[in-house]
């Protein structure tokens, strides 16, 4: 990694404080990947603890873990698969929202794809619940649409 001309070196760490009051450390180079954090650093300086009101102690360590791997260039398909393996669909959603808040692009893209992949085998009812969407089709309208696109409904797994 190229060294900054300014005082920060690659070994400098930044303190982040979650919405529920816990403090975590990350390297400055990892913080750079989260544009929201970098903006706060630019405004407040890198010596104080950066407050992240909308991220909590459940998600932040996971996000830090991801970017720790990223700065060493070690993010592989295998790593990404392991990373989400034990997360359920709701946990991934929360992590996705946190990545969005932090403006952490790489993680955001990866989680978008992961959520899309998870929904591939899910039913329409599951998708509605997952996104909190009301069904405003009448039963007749819905069954007509399903008939028209019958080919797309083959091979659905049962809701987990």
């Amino acid at each position: 990694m190229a060294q900054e001309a300014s005082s920060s070196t690659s070994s400098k760490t930044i303190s982040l404080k979650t919405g529920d009051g816990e403090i975590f450390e990350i390297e400055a180079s990892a913080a750079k990947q989260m544009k929201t954090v970098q903006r706060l650093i630019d405004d407040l300086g890198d010596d104080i603890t950066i407050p992240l009101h909308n991220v909590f102690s459940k998600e932040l360590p996971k996000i830090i873990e991801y970017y720790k791997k990223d700065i060493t260039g070690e993010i592989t398909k295998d790593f990404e698969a392991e990373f989400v393996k034990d997360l359920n669909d709701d946990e991934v959603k929360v992590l996705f929202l946190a990545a969005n808040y932090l403006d952490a692009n790489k993680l955001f893209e990866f989680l978008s794809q992961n959520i899309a992949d998870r929904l591939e085998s899910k039913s329409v009812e599951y998708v509605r619940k997952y996104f909190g969407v009301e069904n405003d089709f009448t039963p007749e309208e819905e069954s007509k649409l399903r008939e028209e696109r019958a080919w797309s409904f083959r091979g659905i797994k049962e809701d987990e």
Partner: protein
Amino acid sequence: MSSPPAKLRVQPDDESPAILPDELITEVLSHADVKSLMQMRCVSKTWDAMISDPKFVKLHLKRASRNPSLTLFLSKSRIDGDNNVVPFPVSCLIENPMITLPNDPYFRLRAKECRYVIGSCNGWLCLLGYSSIGAYRQIWLRFWNPAMHKMTEKLGYIWDNILGLYTHFKFAFGYDELSETYKVVLLILDEARNRTNVQILSLGDDMWRSIQSFPAVPLPFRYSNPGVNDVVYLNGSLNWLALRDSFRSIGVYGWKNVNVKEFVIISLDLGTETYRQLMPPCGFDEMSPVEPSICVLKDCLCFSNDYKRTDFVIWKMEVFGVEESWTQLFRISYQNLQSMHLDFVDLQYSQWLPLHLSDHGDTLILANKQERQAILYNLRDNRAVRTRITDDIQWFSAKVHVESLVSDILKPQVHQP
């Protein structure tokens, strides 16, 4: 990406699930596959409208282009000469499974009254079929989006009389962004008049129309089937490798008489329907018995040639249309491409065709005319591995293809000014 929404966040131990704002839902859905999206149109009226919105279709297409497939052209039946076209994700191909492709009737061409795939554009395949009536052939086109289960009627009928579909016709398929029109271009070699006539069919029009004749002699003009890759579609233009000056037929041993300076790339802009001529890389300065070729890798026009029968070289035109921007992309020694099982194959005299370069630039998929299998070449450790799909695939007909939600390509006729 959207700015952090104000009222969004819930505490982790709250009962109610986190709700994604609309722009994040769109983001997630733009990564979903077509089949799932077609199901999700039943979620609600808003989702139905969102998924069919042209802006979403465009966004989805852009994402899908980063995860393309190759259309594998093969025959499952030795009896009736029927061919199958199977879109196979590049990401799967790179993992190199040892499999046999299923003989799914959905991917058979004869039932669609077609025989070859001319090209792929925005998720639509241009298929060609014909029937023989006495000494004549009636040729037609048909367009198919396999992911959306949509297919057009037969259209663009042409008669092939003395001139041959297999020897004098070249078809090409592309898209003009400005007029949002899909077009098919047909080059017809007219040996008697020493020129190549060109016709265009804009999808939605009834008839083919002539444009200015081709300013060179397109390659290769010898026996080949219409499905073989001999044209490159890139950013609203169709591109052919050609020889300038007067027409001559290049026999199998005729390359030695061709001067390197005679090669030219003819680029047809599908919007203006005019040609421009592009010079091949100046690093290509020595002829070889092996014919050079063009292809697209990483959204750039590429030129490939043999170098002194020791290496296979691929050049990339970094900026389309700027001849000074030709850069050598790879130089691969034939020794590195050699397979230990096939030492009787003279790879240095083979015709090669690069098919795809992976996203992170570390795997190149390429095919050579003499081998049944394609090669997955690892550019980091210079190792070549053969593909293990057991079917007999015609790799020189493989097209780069994406899944798309584009549901209609027959534009209503709008007269050009």
